[in-house]
């Protein structure tokens, strides 16, 4: 059975800070087109280890949230949760005002400025980070 191809996550132009400063995503930098060539794309396997710049993320839908056709993504370590949320929302064509939440351990929502690399260090296993995502209204 063919393995699901790993897809690349387009990286916004802004530089990724090392833990300080505001989130690295500014509204409007991510392209609305479906991911194609973009700056980050491992077609082949990268050697595992600390030098790996990207980490593998497996996205799983929760509740009534649409399931993404591509679930496995290679993402730069410095990508923030907010960046990932924006990406998934665009990919799923959600309205900008709909909220999307991402969870680690299926139960905890990391703050929007948290970097996926850190999450991978804390919660990754078997070479990947499993994140659940859920669409909902949070308030109002």
């Amino acid at each position: 059975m063919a393995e699901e191809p790993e897809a690349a996550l387009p990286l916004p132009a802004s530089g990724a800070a090392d833990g300080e400063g505001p989130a690295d995503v500014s509204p409007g930098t991510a392209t609305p087109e479906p991911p194609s060539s973009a700056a980050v794309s491992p077609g082949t396997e990268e050697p595992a280890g600390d030098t790996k710049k990207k980490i593998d993320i497996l996205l799983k839908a929760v509740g009534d949230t649409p399931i993404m056709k591509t679930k496995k993504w290679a993402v730069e370590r410095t990508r923030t949760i907010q960046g990932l949320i924006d990406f998934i929302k665009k990919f799923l064509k959600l309205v900008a005002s709909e909220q999307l939440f991402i969870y680690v351990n299926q139960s905890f929502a990391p703050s929007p400025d948290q970097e996926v690399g850190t999450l991978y260090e804390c919660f990754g296993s078997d070479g990947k980070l499993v994140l659940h995502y859920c669409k909902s209204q949070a308030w109002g």
Partner: protein
Amino acid sequence: MEEDEFFGEKTFQHYCAEFIKHSQQIGDGWEWRTSKDCSDGYMCKIHFQIKNGTVVSHPGTSAHVQTCLLMEEALELPLDDSEVTEAAAATEVIKYEYHVLYSCSYQVPVLYFRASFLDGRPLSLKDIWEGVHECYKMRLQQGPWDTITQQEHPILGQPFFVLHPCKTNEFMTPVLKNSRKINRNVNYITSWLSIVGPVVGLNLPLSYARAASQNE
């Protein structure tokens, strides 16, 4: 109610106790407070933030920094006012106070908060909205009065801002259902606060996520 366990006040207090246990382990500053004349209680945390968003860090908190990416908040070590003023210099320091209470009518936890400058001047609702994280601003602009309102604190009787709880069940249910499927124990308060906190500048360190799943 469905198969979800009934989230009554006792359950609320239980999860808060577990939450605070972990908070104490990592020095995150949450406390339990009760009012003198009734058994109701709530969780409370105070933190200070420099208004222009400068990172403030203190010695001895490196463990916390590792788990918490954006250190906008000054950890609430016992600062005396002069120390804070020095750090502030030409900028403003804001004191944020967060309270987690139980709502009998909605049967869910509710986040109350207020913010003031060090001289006691409270922040306006407009200031609060400006402080809301970028990724929630769109939703907030669409229905500001549905989202953050000002109400009297049920126990203290003072005006606080409140994150409206009416949709809490809606976003908590899928999370709880999902983790119950795999028999993972979830601390409701931890999950809930991790979701709503960032809207108003309250970010939980990642270690809470591990602690919640370890509690049997």
